[in-house]
């Protein structure tokens, strides 16, 4: 395909892509022993990071004052009681136990996993809508300068509407939508709110990406007598990939946050947001239980971001550099 950049190609791995990789590295042969070793090292560092978190948690719990650290009336470090900070092994052990004493109760981890999957599905739907809307808006704004002037401030403004005000309105509208056999479902309100948070970074990132080709390249395309569509497909879209991928990842994270918060806000049953508040209500008598859904939400965010990284693998030939959106 067209080689628009002058910078040297380097095989950027996903972990490295989390930060903009502007350095120029000698190309590695794929599949060589170096790559395997590097993959192993990445996992090892990841695990080490996790271990540090566990050690800091338990270390602070062991040595920190029971009442936490209060500076000027504000608690800057949490209490170390079992109520506020259960032991790591208690939280993990609780995951293996049944949710309640009820004979039909499933283990906590399974309940959390199922809820997380539901939320992931809703967030994915919201993310897809966000991608379509975001990229669509970016295309329009790139094509017509006047559209950029007209729309961009509104896109920025849209993100200042607090979710707490927005969620009941969306639910209220949704409950009245009924077109033929199609009836608005409650989860769609949640997906819509997720897409509302997701489209923003995607629109901004895609616009920046579409505008990224240097004038020299667009003029080259003009000299070939290439029209708008040809320039778009051959030049702008490939050039937008390095901007788009981080934007998509941000969008995925936003979609997950939006879905979880909107679930809590609208009272949707079945997702992780719901069990988050449900188990928070049980945190006095069963402190470790409330952490189950929190871990679930973390894994959920990682899976969502990881799924976008998969897209990055597919589009790796276009990823010369990665810009932060």
């Amino acid at each position: 395909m067209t080689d628009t950049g002058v910078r040297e190609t380097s095989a950027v791995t996903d972990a490295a892509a989390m930060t903009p990789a502007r350095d120029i590295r000698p190309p590695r042969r794929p599949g060589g022993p170096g790559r395997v070793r590097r993959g192993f090292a990445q996992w090892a560092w990841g695990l080490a990071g996790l271990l540090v978190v566990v050690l800091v948690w338990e270390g602070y719990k062991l040595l920190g004052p029971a009442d936490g650290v209060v500076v000027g009336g504000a608690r800057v470090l949490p209490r170390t009681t079992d109520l506020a900070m259960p032991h790591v092994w208690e939280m993990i052990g609780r995951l293996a136990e049944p949710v309640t004493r009820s004979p039909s109760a499933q283990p906590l981890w399974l309940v959390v996993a199922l809820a997380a999957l539901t939320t992931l599905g809703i967030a994915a739907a919201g993310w897809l809508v966000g991608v379509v809307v975001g990229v669509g808006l970016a295309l329009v704004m790139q094509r017509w300068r006047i559209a950029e002037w007209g729309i961009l401030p509104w896109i920025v403004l849209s993100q200042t509407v607090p979710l707490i005000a927005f969620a009941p309105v969306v639910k209220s509208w949704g409950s009245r939508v009924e077109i033929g056999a199609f009836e608005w479902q409650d989860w769609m309100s949640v997906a819509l709110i997720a897409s509302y948070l997701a489209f923003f970074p995607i629109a901004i990132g895609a616009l920046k990406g579409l505008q990224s080709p240097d004038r020299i390249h667009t003029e080259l395309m003009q000299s070939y007598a290439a029209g708008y569509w040809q320039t778009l497909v051959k030049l702008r879209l490939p050039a937008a990939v390095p901007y788009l991928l981080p934007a998509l990842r941000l969008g995925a994270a936003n979609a997950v946050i939006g879905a979880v918060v909107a679930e809590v806000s609208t009272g949707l049953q079945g997702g992780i947001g719901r069990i988050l508040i449900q188990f928070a209500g049980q945190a006095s008598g069963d402190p470790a239980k409330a952490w189950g859904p929190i871990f679930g939400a973390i894994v959920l965010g990682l899976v969502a971001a990881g799924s976008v990284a998969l897209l990055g693998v597919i589009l790796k030939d276009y990823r010369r550099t990665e810009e932060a959106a």
Partner: protein
Amino acid sequence: MNHSRRRLATIGGLAFAATLALSACSAPNDSVPGEGGSGERELTPVKLQLQWLPQGQFAGYFAAVDQGYFEEEGLDVEIIPSGGDIVPQDALANGDVDYAIAWVPKVLGSIEQGANLTNIAQIFQKSGTLQVSWADSGIDSVADFEGKKIGSWGFGNEWEIFAAMAAEGLDSTTVQIITQDFNMNAFLQGDIDAAQAMTYNEYAQLLETPNPDTGELYQPEDFNVISYEDTEGAMLQDAIWADTERLESDEEYQDTTVAFLKAVVKGWIYAAENPEQASEITIAAGSGWGPSHELWMVNETNKLIWPSPNGIGVIDEAAWDKTVAGALSAVNESGARLITEEPPATAWSNEWIQRALDELEGDDLDLTGEGFEPIEVELQEGGN
């Protein structure tokens, strides 16, 4: 060759994303209860908005669905739980639902703001709100509140505190209102001197928590409990609200209202007589509490409903007037008021519940709860 393989991978990736999205479309659908299933008879769809998540506080409504009482009355009732930001009376006033469960003082506030709603059945006859402090705290009555850190959930749940303080002639601006979380941790850790607790929920949460000093669960002796029911601040709580305008002009809605109330009454009678089953039904309806907590909740809720000397749901005018008086007198910690004038006469009506009770008269049902006996519930650690 290489290109087509890449294209294949792209298509594969897109297909994967699409599958994820589609699975989102289908998965939550399966969990929606009460969809379809209308038999030979055409059922009238009805939406009921709850105040909070499904739990024993609403066991009677879930029992009415489970036992087919609504269907017997020709209704297909969808019970809609609330979350953090869904205000039941707003959802009703907006026309999103047909009926809503809400506390009287909160709706009085909404009515003064312009909502046109009517209390058609006062399910809870008594207030279930407590203010709980440690046994050695010296807070034995509302008179001791001044200057203390008082816990409340906010969102209109705090007015009983201020009404009770106003009745004692106390200055509400001296208290520091601490917003409570979903659990009692803030109280247990000493951030709150006296925490708000419902008899059926948060008080049980305390009794399900191990005392770190003894290793055993906390006992009732460990706490001072002030019940608002015993104070001038007591306000009416869970009531069923309907749209005033539709009640006046829409005949179909009037009939639906009577049918709905008949089924609700039967549901609560079922919960009174079968607390264990009602608790299981509520858990099956999506409540996340452990069995012992859920049963406690159903049992304590029953105690707030029964006995109802005039029949379940009939609004006791004296209690209503007391609620209004409390709402009028209450001034919160920042000096704001809930309402400034008497609510309109349309704010409550016994017409519909009375009609429902009259129609149920011959059915051998204990409509006043004469024979009601609460059960003993033993709470387990964590409510499990």
